[in-house]
C-alpha cells in the first residue's frame, strides 16, 4: 500500500532535473580522475571501415582494441576490469591519438603505428610472437612458422597461431599480415573478410 506522500515523492522525483549534460559531466569526471591518477583504463568507440572498434588505453599506452561486432564490448570491458583495473571509464578524449592514427591508416596516409603500446594483457611466448608480428611492415606478409622462429620456438607453429588469435590489439599489432605457408589466409579474430580487407588496403593481395 502506498501512502499519498509516497506517491507525491515519486511523482516529484520524476520531475527532478537530469544530471548536467551527460557527456559533459562524465568527461569532466574522467579528466579529474586522470589528473588524480585514477583513470586506469580509458576507452571509446571509434568508427572504421571494418565497423565500430572499441579501443582502450592505460597511462602507458594502447592496451586493447576489439571489433565491436565480433566481440561484445561489455565482455571486453569486464575482462579489462578484471585483468587491468576496475577503474574503467569512457573517455574519448583520452584515446584521441589512437583514433587519429587509425583514421590515417584507413585513409591510406599511415603505414606505421607510432602510438605507445601497453603489453599488460600478454604473457611469455605470446608477447614474443606479437612483438615479432609488430615488426612486419605495411604491405608485407609473413608466415606462422616464420613468426614462431622469430619468437624463438621454430617448432611451436600451432602455439604461434593461438598467440596471434589472442592478439589484444589487432590492426595495430598486424596479425593480419601472418599467413599460412603456401599462401593460405589462415584465420583471423574478427573474421577472414576483415583480414582480406586489411591485406587489400595495404596492397599485399589484390
Amino acid at each position, binding site marked *: 500500500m502506498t*501512502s499519498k506522500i509516497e506517491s507525491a*515523492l515519486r511523482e*516529484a522525483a520524476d*520531475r*527532478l532535473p537530469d*544530471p548536467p549534460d551527460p557527456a559533459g559531466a562524465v568527461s569532466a*569526471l574522467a579528466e579529474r580522475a586522470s589528473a588524480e591518477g*585514477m583513470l586506469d583504463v580509458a576507452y571509446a568507440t571509434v568508427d572504421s571501415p571494418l565497423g565500430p572498434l572499441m579501443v582502450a588505453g592505460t597511462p602507458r599506452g594502447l592496451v586493447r582494441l576489439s571489433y565491436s561486432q565480433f566481440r561484445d564490448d561489455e565482455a571486453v*570491458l569486464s575482462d579489462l576490469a*578484471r585483468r587491468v583495473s576496475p577503474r574503467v571509464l569512457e573517455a574519448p578524449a583520452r584515446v584521441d591519438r589512437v583514433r587519429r592514427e587509425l583514421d590515417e591508416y584507413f585513409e591510406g596516409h599511415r603505414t606505421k603505428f607510432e602510438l605507445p603500446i601497453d603489453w599488460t594483457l600478454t604473457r611469455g611466448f605470446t608477447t614474443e610472437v606479437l612483438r615479432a608480428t609488430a615488426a612486419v611492415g605495411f604491405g608485407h606478409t609473413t608466415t606462422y612458422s616464420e613468426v614462431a622462429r622469430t619468437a624463438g620456438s621454430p617448432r611451436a607453429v600451432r602455439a604461434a597461431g593461438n598467440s596471434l588469435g589472442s592478439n589484444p590489439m589487432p590492426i595495430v599489432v598486424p596479425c593480419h599480415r601472418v599467413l599460412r605457408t603456401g599462401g593460405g589466409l589462415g584465420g583471423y579474430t574478427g573474421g577472414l573478410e576483415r583480414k582480406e580487407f586489411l591485406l587489400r588496403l595495404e596492397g599485399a593481395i589484390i
Partner: protein
Amino acid sequence: MNLPPFQALLDEHRVDVFRFCVASAGPDEADDCFQETWIAALRAYPKLRRTDNLRAWLFRIAQNKAIDLHRGRSRRPVAVEALPESVSAPDERPSNGEPELWAEVRRLPTKQRTAVFCRSVLGMPYSELAQLLESSEDAARRNVFEGLKKLKEEWNP
C-alpha cells in the same frame, strides 16, 4: 571477486545519484555533490571486497558528500547579491519538481532523509537500506516511517 567496470556503475546509477543529490544537498549544490560522490567512489572502488551491495555503498557516499557540502555551505560567507538595479533574472534552472517538497525532505534528519528517498523513490529493499544506513532492518524501517510521518505533517500542497 570481480568488480564490474566502473563505467557500468556510472551508467546504471548516475540519474538516481543526481536526483538524490538534488533532493538531499539542494539544487545549488547538486552538481558538486554529484562530482564529489563519483570521484570518492572511484578512489575507493578497487579496494571494495563485496559486489553485492554496490548501490548501498554508492548512496552512502552520496549521503556523506551531501552532508559535507551542506556543512561547508553554512560556514561559508554568503555572497551579497548584485545591486538591485535591474529586475532579477528569471530562475534559469530547470524545474525541480515540487521544490517545496524537497525542501521539507532536506529538513529531515540525515538517516530519515536518505531512508525516505531510497525507499519511496528508488524502491530500495529494507535489507539494502539497512546496509546503506549501517543499521538493522528494523531501524531502517523506522527511519522510513518517521520521515514519511514528518513529511505528512509538514507538507501541504
